């Protein structure tokens, strides 16, 4: 007979939560797990989460959740060290995954921006761009949303701690409305809804609240890596222009929003920049 098998508990995965340029809303989604938060604290070792705890445990971490985009040279450096310390790096939210609303600076003169906000712009150090984490380091998994859906977060963390590769659906919000029997706001109200090109995840909140989707969860299926086709933004934009009578600048603004810097939306808004210029 050999040695009796050890029944000691498996080691808890060590979690770090890191913040870059952001509104803190996705980190709040972790605290908003409320009923599951204390249970999660037992399954995972929440080692580094400065917004919630003074105990800032050093790396390495099994899982790093990264909120926010890269907008300063210090942060471009800091993300490298987060990557070095993390086995699995997951971006949480539109800022970390796509550059966020602050990526609107990518089309603007940042020095002029500084002058609008600060009386002494020379003290403000900031890059001219706001970029997603994936432009700086390898990202293992991306959670979309502004904010992320806490159910999706919980699912991904549970999958990872069980050793399962997480998978999330990537079909358009449009499909959710059909499934739930929500009246189409574009047909019924004539509003420029981004549901046909926006990734599922929120639960079709906007149409269910009587308004147009504004693209919080980024482009639907296949727009980054992975299978499927990029969303047909050109067709939707044409419908906004010809069907709903939006002028080119209005079509442009529609795509240049919360996730405006992600490729399919960026290219569509650029196309309407050109239409606007010709007009």
């Amino acid at each position: 007979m050999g040695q009796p098998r050890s029944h000691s508990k498996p080691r808890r995965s060590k979690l770090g939560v890191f913040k870059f340029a952001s509104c803190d809303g996705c980190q709040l989604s972790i605290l908003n797990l409320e009923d599951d938060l204390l249970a999660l604290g037992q399954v995972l070792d929440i080692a580094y989460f400065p917004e919630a705890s003074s105990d800032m445990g050093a790396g390495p971490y099994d899982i790093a959740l990264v909120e926010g985009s890269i907008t300063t040279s210090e942060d471009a450096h800091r993300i490298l060290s987060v990557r070095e310390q993390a086995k699995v790096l997951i971006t949480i939210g539109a800022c970390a995954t796509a550059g966020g609303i602050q990526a609107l600076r990518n089309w603007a003169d940042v020095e002029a921006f500084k002058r609008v906000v600060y009386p002494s712009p020379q003290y403000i150090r900031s890059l001219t761009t706001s970029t997603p984490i994936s432009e700086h380091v390898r990202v293992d998994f991306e959670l979309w949303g502004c904010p992320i859906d806490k159910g999706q977060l919980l699912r991904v963390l549970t999958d990872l701690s069980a050793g399962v590769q997480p998978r999330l659906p990537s079909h358009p919000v449009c499909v959710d409305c059909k499934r739930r029997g929500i009246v189409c706001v574009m047909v019924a109200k004539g509003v420029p809804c981004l549901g046909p090109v926006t990734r599922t995840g929120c639960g079709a909140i906007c149409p269910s609240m009587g308004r147009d989707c504004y693209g919080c969860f980024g482009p639907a299926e296949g727009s980054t890596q992975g299978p499927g086709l990029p969303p047909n933004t050109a067709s939707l934009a044409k419908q906004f222009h010809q069907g709903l009578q939006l002028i080119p600048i209005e079509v442009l603004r529609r795509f240049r929003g919360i996730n405006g810097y992600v490729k399919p939306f960026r290219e569509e808004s650029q196309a309407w920049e050109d239409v606007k210029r010709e007009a």
Partner: protein
Amino acid sequence: MAEGKHKTRTIKIDTVARVEGEGALHVAVKDGVVQDVELRIFEPPRFFEAFLQGRHYDEVADIVARICGICPVAYQMSAVHALEQIFGVQVTGALRDLRRLIYCGEWIESHALHVYMLQAPDFLGYDSGIAMAKDHANMVTRGLRLKKAGNAIMTLLGGRSVHPVSVKVGGFSRVPRRRELESLKDELLWARDAAIETVHWVAGFEFPEFLPDSLFVALRAPDEYPFNEGQIVSGNGLRISATEFERHFAEQQVPYSNALHCTLHGSPYFVGPLARLNLNHDHLSPLARQSLDGTGLALSLRNPFHGIIARSVEILYALEESLRLIERYEPPPSPGVPVVVRPGTGMACTEAPRGILYHRYRVDADGIIREAKIVPPTSQNQSRIEQDLRLFMPRLLSLSDDKEVALACERVIRCYDPCISCATHFLRLELDRD
């Protein structure tokens, strides 16, 4: 501890924990005298006021929500009120009640988070709410359930609690049916009792003796505790409308911080729950009044550490107010009033969980934003926090361990529930002992 002729001591907090956003503190001490206190906000600037230029007025509520995930409703409310002022739109009756109700939800959610998860651990000696749960599971569970009750109000009215989607100029994109609101009642009644217990619980904490002379500033309305409307009043007799804000309050930039400092006639001032309570306690609801009286504390409350009591009393107020608003709710004929665009400039101030939040917009004839100015509560409190630290520091200098000094400083900072994401447009402590 001090040897030699000139002793320099630098106390540094590299990252102030349990605050929303990123900041650091630098304190320089020379010969036992505090020379310099700098609250450095290194949260990267996000330039909201700049990229709002050129956007349509209808997009503003969705964009400004993204300034802060903890208090998005506050940003939405100040924005829609300022824009409605330009267009001459009046939001009254049930629509006004619903705005007040969603704001109550945000106060409950934000205050419960701060009281239970961020500040109570300071008084009970833990690193976090999660760590505190090991010994005080019932308390932490109660706090999280309270927070959830606030989130439930926001989710029902706004579709979700972080960045709600329904708030718009003129009203909402959708309003609830009566029975939907009634479905909240049972949980809010539980929460009201839990809030009474919360006031009692936090009033029993041990508070340092600390009575700085603060200038309190808050909104004040004729017959209600302030959320969306009211005049800006101060403890020394200021009484102005939001349109006059920039004639009295000025933002200054300091080289060490990405947040602007705001002063009233050049002096630091104090906004938030403690200021609101001191200036509006006569408008508290019955149970909130009774619970406050039950603490035996005499008004006005000047100790910043009593902020946790003010915050708890406001949770209770917001719950009583929510129940009152739900009770009298009759759905409005339309979810929003019609808006006709006209060019102009509008200003509004509303009471965010952390204090008054000022917005100004200039809109052209096509409804496009040409100029935006936003003054968040944390940039208003920043000078006051630095002054408190200057006054609080001397009693800490006998501590030889800089780490202990740093922890005590962080506790002072957390009294203000600073939201650094909001203020950059917060913390590392550096204590320089010379």
